[in-house]
């Protein structure tokens, strides 16, 4: 199962953290730091998997990450998950974010952390992959967003967008 999903930027600032196993607040922060430390020192041309840090469970665990422009997306999973499957799941996640936010960037994640969590909840539930079909996820999110129509949309942050998905093209074409 998935133990944690972490998003932090190139400086290690957490942008989203979701733990599917109970860790104390302190441990969570340590895990984020450790993970950042492990992931950030890796070159661009090395593989996207590494064996987990000690805090999150040692060698039975794997970190699978992708680096998009300013952000690292890291999934901590145990040995029952497929590395490749998770790697592509990250891509699905980011593409879904891109669809929901239109050219998603780091600021979207900061200002709409609740929405990002909601999107994530449609993909991963209690540590298990629930849905991988992007259209299905977007449909669910849209259905929920209809509720929000009464709310004024918060569009204040779309000014300084540097697209998060710039790198996507390199990765998949």
């Amino acid at each position, binding site marked *: 199962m998935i133990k944690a999903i972490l998003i932090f930027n190139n400086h290690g600032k*957490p*942008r*989203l*953290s*979701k733990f*599917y196993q*109970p860790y104390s*607040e302190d441990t*969570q*922060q340590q895990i*984020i730091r450790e993970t950042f430390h492990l992931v950030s020192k*890796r*070159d661009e*041309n*090395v*593989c*996207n*998997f*590494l*064996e987990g840090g000690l805090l999150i469970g*040692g*060698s039975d665990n794997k970190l699978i990450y992708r680096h998009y422009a300013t952000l690292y997306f890291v999934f901590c999973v145990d040995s*029952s998950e*497929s*590395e*490749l*499957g998770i*790697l*592509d*799941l990250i891509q*699905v996640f980011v593409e879904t974010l891109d669809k929901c936010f239109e050219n998603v960037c780091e600021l979207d994640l*900061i*200002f709409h*952390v*609740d929405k990002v*969590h*909601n999107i994530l*909840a449609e993909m991963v*539930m*209690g540590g*298990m*992959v*629930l*849905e*991988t*079909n*992007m*259209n*299905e996820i977007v449909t*669910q999110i849209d*259905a*929920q967003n209809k*509720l*929000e129509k009464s*709310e*004024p949309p*918060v569009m*204040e*942050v779309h000014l300084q967008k540097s697209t998060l998905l710039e790198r996507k093209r390199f990765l*998949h074409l």
Partner: protein
Amino acid sequence: MSDIVEKTLTALPGLFLQNQSVGGPAGVKASFSSRLGGLVRGITALTSKHEEEKLIQQELSNLKATVSAPATTLKMMKECMVRLIYCEMLGYDASFGYIHAIKLAQQGNLLEKRVGYLAVSLFLHENHELLLLLVNTVVKDLQSTNLVEVCMALTIVSQIFPREMIPAVLPLIEDKLQHSKEIIRRKAVLALYKFHLIAPNQVQHIHIKFRKALCDRDVGVMAASLHIYFRMIKENPSAYKDLTGSFVTILKQVVGGKLPVDFNYHSVPAPWLQIQLLRILGLLGKDDQRTSELMYDVLDESLRRAELNHNVTYGLKALTYVIQQDPTLALQHQMTIIECLDHPDPIIKRETLELLYRITNAQNITVIVQKMLEYLHQSKEEYIIVNLVGKIAELAEKYAPDNAWFIQTMNAVFSVGGDVMHPDIPNNFMRLLAEGFDDETEDQQLRLYAVQSYLTLLDVENVFYPQKFLQVMSWVLGEYYYLLDKDTPEEVLTKLYKLLMNASVSSETKAWLIAAVTKLTSQAHSSNIVERLIQEFTISLDTCMRQHAFELKHLRENVELMKSLLPVDKSCEDMVVDASLSFLDGFVAEELSQGAAPYKPHHQRQEEKLSQEKVLNFEPYGLSFSSSGFTGRQSPAGISLGSDISGNSAETGLKETNGLKLEGIKKLWGKEGYLPKKEGKTGDETEAPPVPQESIIMETVDQTLIKKDQCQVLTQSKEEKEKQLLASSLFVGLGSESTVNLLGKADTVSHKFRRKSKIKETKSGETTSAHNRTCSYFSSSSNATYEDGYYLDTLQDRGDKELNKLSLNSGLLDSESLTELPSVEKLSNCKLSSSPSLFTDNSMEGFQPSQSTALSVANETSLAASLLEETSEHMHSDLVEVCHNETISLSSFKIWKDDCLFMVWSVSNKSGLELESADLEIAPAENFKITEQPGCRLPIIEAESIKTFQYSVQVEKPFTEGNLSGFINYQMMDTHSVQLEFSVNLSLLDFIRPLKISTENFGKLWLSFANDVKQNIKVSESQAALPSALKTLQQKLRLHVVEIIGNEGLLACQLLPSIPCLLHFRVHGDVLALWFRSSCSTLPDCLLYQCQKVMEGS
């Protein structure tokens, strides 16, 4: 209780809101939506961590004021929650907001509720007390007609939900499996999976509904159910074999592109689904030819369609798994593997080495180990070093091509692995040196080489070797320095002395060093250095060292005694040990007559322990340095046996003190004690003894490294060739030579290796069997004694029996000669095979597995004695055949001993031929600790005879279903070896024992336990009566009835080794109310399940 709190909470804001003034809150509200933005901008503008802390603390105190202010609307609260989430993510404590998050989830409209739920799921963990307040909200939302609300509730349930509240929502979620909306069904399946994970027994009854989910018309629901199936099949593959067809069909559809096109991911049809299905099929097809055959087509198809060039590690991992099945497959990818070896990414390199480790054989060992050492020198992470060092040592022992290489490699292992490596490694190494192989000159050369290389290493100035390495060195030098044929060991004594005076050497190592000095002193007694050393250490502050120094000092005064105590090269000779400590008999008698308490055997003390509150710890404090008397300690029961076989007791005592640690190791790790863990290894060691080899001699590891560096300087084309060379040396010996080698060179070499090792194999086989034959003397004599003892037992009381046994034992020892032995053994075997009724009989006494191999007299007598003590009073299961073919039949049964489960497998040879190298292996199983009982390793099963293998099984944590699998190997004359697989189911009940406690203690324990489970179960009329229910529980579950009060009963049991569980039960009409409590969180659940099974079954 949570009800009331919830109502109160609901009422509060309403009250406040009624009296809201229009002006204040509106103003606050306007600025609210941009507050988060402000906060984020504020943080971004900061430059130091300290400032951030100040800002956030400020923000948090503002938030605290806002959330607790009565005027705060839910909408504002929602905004606050988002900011709290942000602060928590940065690592600041926002616990004051938790209760408000729950409130928001309770009271808010959809949007607010959603944020409330989100905050709850991020803030709380599943054991948080506040979570109970959420239960009613969840129940309400699950019943809602609004889909979104139901979805939110399901999501929160699968993320965090208190285990004990599952029954409250379970029926609601079960209903959702039939919901018309796919998304609800999907989430319901996952929520149930979560329940299955945290409380498997509560969802036991809905397994059949999962099957419906698997066949759901919606792909998502089906995919969600795969999570459950993967888990359940992993736990118990045999129960789901019938589903193989369904999984194959689904996979076929997925691979064939039958799913809607939006399930394609980058034009691969539903890759996640494929992965999941393939894993499930892998579990189902494992070790099952018939099931596997169903899958071949679809697997082939999936492989064909899959793109193979994704991420290299992934491929490597897969390849590693494949190679475990068939090493020749690696050949097709050899160049890729070579590329990976030089990959800049250390992770890929490591995976590559893992792969190479799997394909290592006698021919490519040098190259592979060299690669591993290169990697080892670069890596710094401890667990990588530990792991790799272990692998290198294992490979070196298995396949070492020659002495020099072996020693050099082990030197590298010791100096790099140092003190982090597994203690088995140095112990194995020393044992290997001491025991040697069949060829004495070969052994001497190996030892000589080791001595020489250590002397060289110690010559190097200013080098610090790890403590473990120094210990190995000092032992080897002490034991085998004499091989150098020098007149005096002055030179080596100087070196040891230097080390002894070195402050960086640990005191444990110093003990090893001084032991070496002692041994050397006996060879050359007049040494100034020894003199100085004694002077130095007799005043040492370290008592241990002082003791050794004094011993040495006194021994030096009696050279003859010293020489007889420390004979040269006798480290692995078995010592005759007076296991009964008979030389103390006089002393004991004297003490007893003066009123000392008599000795109590272990089991007796155990019983007393249970009845008393406080008892002293009678366990020995580990292995002390001076290991005198350890044999007695090992087998307190042995004291009553075999006075006759004791040797010269005075000598024994002294010898042990001076034999020092090595002798201790010897006994504990001796041939028999060793086997349970390393059975494969010992076999391999004898298979591949170091053979001198001119072709590949590597002087030192360092030199090879240098060589390699030189190679890299060569030109590009040469580098390519180099790689091919490397490839051919790496993959040599896998499959047929012609396809293996790119350069086709190694043919001749490999032949040479092979022939040699084969000769070795047969040779060593012969010698071991010969050795075993001589050893079986005592074993069968004690068996015979035992059987006689049994018959006597029926007539006489226990004390008499002991006496009889003793006399019988001695009688046998006197009268029987070695040649008569097989007949004795057969006799007992025949008795066994001709009367299987003994097993179905209610007691075990009649059956005594024939012990075959024995290392030492002491061990054997103690084993016989302990079996004697133990089997007589234990329940056992019937003998069940687990597998058979035309030659052999393998049966097993369980003995439920007080302290563990004892499994006995008995192999009966039905054929008229002798079976060679028969070996039974039990695969290591998660959650079970399996220890082989000593004394069941005779590689030959004679015609029409029976042989038994015994294992004791311990459990690590409670479980519902368990399974032990293994295989038996044997070889008939001149035919290839045959392997038969089998598996045996284990139940939790196998590890449950009655716990005999008083009602008073029951009460105390009951209050101290935190984990409880309550359940009512319906039973048939006949069962409902208290006595019959009690009887069932007592007999089938092995519970101890503590007390019966009216229609209530108190029962107690323990899960081995010592997790207690208490049961309170009450009978109401046809309902049994069960209430379990335990110190372990999962045990009550598991027991409840067993209880249900038993009550329903009976």
